[in-house]
């Protein structure tokens, strides 16, 4: 350990451990991955919190995200500026929420954000259409898309405002049998 370059101080690691669902080792590995994304951009030494951000285009190409139809949304919703530029903190945050250990409630919140394409804190019909089109690679006819979106809203919208608030979403997703097992990325 002695001759290795220090990436984080002990306090930093402890703090990350307290704030995420990762162990020290995993955090170091995450830093490795983060560093790999942009070796010229990301310093190895993180002891003094450098203000570095990796752009969306690089992150989206990670093998863990590459096939995900919602990859841009995932990265955007975890980035602090909303543009998809992730600092290391955001990066760790993202994989912490998507890790196996994260509780359902936390996952639900971020899932809501991911599916909320136009970032207005409601999932409206547009969002649903976008979700559906990404899920099916736009192979459904427009009528079918409209039908599905209407049905989905009809099912989950409890307060009748024709869009899904977080409460509606949470109520729906908390009963979904597959949510926990699917909303999960192993890194």
């Amino acid at each position: 350990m002695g001759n290795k370059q220090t990436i984080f101080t002990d306090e930093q690691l402890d703090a990350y451990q307290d704030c995420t669902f990762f162990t020290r080792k995993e955090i170091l590995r995450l830093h490795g991955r983060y560093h790999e994304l942009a070796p010229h951009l990301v310093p190895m030494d993180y002891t003094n919190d450098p203000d570095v951000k990796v752009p969306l285009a690089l992150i989206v190409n990670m093998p863990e995200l590459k096939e995900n139809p919602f990859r841009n949304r995932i990265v955007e919703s975890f980035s602090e500026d909303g543009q998809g530029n992730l600092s290391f903190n955001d990066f760790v945050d993202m994989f912490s929420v998507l890790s196996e250990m994260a509780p359902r409630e936390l996952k639900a919140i971020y899932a809501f954000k991911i599916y909320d394409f136009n970032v207005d804190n409601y999932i409206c019909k547009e969002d649903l259409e976008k979700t559906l089109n990404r899920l099916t690679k736009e192979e459904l006819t427009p009528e079918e898309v409209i039908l599905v979106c209407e049905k989905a809203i009809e099912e989950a919208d409890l307060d009748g405002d024709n869009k899904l608030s977080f409460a509606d979403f949470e109520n729906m997703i908390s009963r979904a049998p597959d949510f926990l097992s699917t909303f999960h990325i192993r890194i």
Partner: protein
Amino acid sequence: MEIDAEYDSGSDVDSKRRAKGKNKPKPAARGKKAKADSVEESEEEEEEAPRKRKGRKKKEESEEESEEEQKGRRKKAAGSKKRAVKKDDSEEESEEEKGNKRKGGKKGASRKEKEEENNKEKKGNGKAAGKGGKDKQDDKDKKKNKGKNSSGSSSDDNSEDESMSEGEMARLKEEVEEKKKLIVTLRNKPWRMKRRLKCLKEAQAFVEKFEGALGKGKGRRLYAFKVMMTKVLMGMPYGSIARKTVPRDEQDSAMDFSVLFEFGVICYCLIWIKLLTFLQGYCKYSIMFYGYYNNQRSIGLLQFRLPLSYLLVGVGIFGYSLMVVIRTMARNANEGGDGAEEGAFTFSWKLFTSWDYLIGNPETADNKFASTTTSFKESIVDEQENLKDENIHLRRFLRVIANILILCCLGGSGYLIYYVVKRSQEFAKKDRNELTWLQKNEVEIVMSLLGLVCPPLFEVISELEEYHPRIALKWQLARIFALFLGNLYTFLFALFDEVNAKLDNEKEIKNETIWALKEYYDNYTLHHNVTENIPPPNISPADVIRGPCWETEVGIEFVKLTVSDIQVTYLTILIGDFLRAVIVRFLNYCWCWDLEAGFPSYGEFDISGNVLGLIFNQGMIWMGAFYAPGLVGINVLRLLSSMYYQCWAVMSCNVPHERVFKASRSNNFYMGLLLLVLFLSLMPVIYSIMTLPPSFDCGPFSGKDQMYDVIMETIEKDLPPFMADIFSYASNPGLIMPAVLLMVLAIYYLNAVSKAYQNSNMDLKRKMQMQRDEEKNRRNNKDSTNQVMKDLEDLLPNKSLIPPPSAEETEKPADQLSKSPKVTGKPGAAATGKGVNVKKDVSLAAANPRAPVTRPPGPRPPGPLPGNARGPLPGQGMGRGRGGPPPRR
């Protein structure tokens, strides 16, 4: 320790005298720190402020400790190495303090009497301080210490002061606990990492600052708490339970199929034909079958009772299987309990949970896209069908016709089997060598062919019915089930006919043997003139006249059935899947239409059919295992090999089933089928054990009238007599009847109880629904109160990037609350917060909960724009239910 304690209790009194002067400035200082006279004093005061809130009893110790604490913190800033040492120190000391506390508390009452000991204790005081402070504690500190002690004891005297500090201490304690909880649950907060880190730092600082002051070992408890909470929150680590581990069969599949295949193709046909003939030959008298086992009562040194154990194992297998199946079903039922109303969220679930975020492989992703699309299309079709209104009479007619057709099929197949079995009995009477291979194995071949042909036929017929796919699948499964069961039972009945014939035959042979034996003895006495000690007839064991041994025959039938079943399954896979896949793949280059997408296409992997096959296979094993113990071994081999074989087939030449019938673990459908099969296969075996006499010259029960006589024999001969008595009483109908009655009553009672639970469950569900509705109404009217909503708003991009107000404002109130004694608000929160912990704010808002909602929820104005607003101001919409419309709407 003793000395310290003395010092504590004493010094209080002692310092009381000394520090009368200090009594006055303290309360003032607490109010306004700035009015301290000297630097030292003010420093002390700063320490004092929180300290004041502590209870009287803990005063002295905690003071010393907080001092220690403070020092520790300072040193931490200086260097981390020293910190570790210091931590040890302070921990040690806190131990010491605890001791003090205990002693002090004990002796507090008798403090006055001990005043005379003061002098001695003062000496102790010096010692203790020197010891406690170690290298770092200089004279000044000591002095301070004393001063504090005095001040603490001074507040002791002041009763007003005391009660105040009690309450404050409790509040502080509560707050520290809260902070600790916050630290532990921080990772569950939907905040940006930056905020989280900041919050963590603050909370840690707070806890460190005040926890010591409250007289607890700071490090350890926090740690223990943390560990506990993380365990609770995060559950087990990877690999500890099944869900979190990669299934074993997936781990080592996909590797070793090619070798198996090449070998298989060449040897396949040869082997099976050989095996079938082999069965009739040597196997018949091998360990595989009933007839091999001897009827000797006990074998070897250990007195192994073969007949008894044969019977007990045979019956025990059923008992064990029953138990396992029922336990699994019960567990499944428990797990699948809370799955709310099925089908309530078909589309939304599909939308939001159908993508598996773990997918990282382009091919898998393409498959997923395709299957998601089809599943959506299916649901759409369902939906449209629900709306459609069409000719119901035609449909009914078609369904009736379909059912009639299927009944005909079932009846026909049953008759065919009966006919074939009868024919085989005729064949059996003929000489074995005259028969062709086909004639010998007719029954098995016909049964397997029926199993092969009928299911697709049923599928074609069920097209007539136009059921919903899921229902259609259930019908299909039920029909296949009926077919298999019907076939099996006709087969069994035919077999029983055969057995009865064999039994008659056996009687003749038995008479013949007895007659031959008698003749031999007569001749022997005639020739040698001896009446006793006649040696047994000298015939080689191969030439002895033997009975037909019907048990072995039955066993052979089952083994043949199993083997031909394996054969058909494997051949089907080879031809129906592999050959088809090869043709489709390679002929596609030179064909008129697209074979892959068009007519033949690739075979589908039929999950439900395969599961049914497994279930039937298991049923056959259950039925046959008693008469052919080797069947179990064959089956193990079959399952092992078919796992790899089918795995290969699935990976290389199947496409996923278009619609998967979800047999999740919570679904007891297949387990129910298994239970039914178990029961049905149990009946004939038990019947034959209980009623048919065992054959006289083969098997472990030969020579007995009934198989269960073995048990009687054992009871009589091997167990002490009182046990025999007990058993005879236990088998008395007078005792059995009440026992049965009791069981019936127990079932009735348990049933009633479960009904009651169900009712209360429903009730609770309804209540939850109501509560949710109510909450929703409230949230509609004032959404600023909900913490989660606030967090969500905070997570909007650019929100945390506007540093000055947003970050500060959210943090500030917490800080202020934590620093200043929270005299306001907190008690109320404590009072109402008890009931609804999670949504404290909501419950606070519910002070007037019964007020009617005067206005329908109505559409909301578009949400706050991402850039400017930080959510609605607190306090907005407070006027719900108070008459006037809320300001926002």
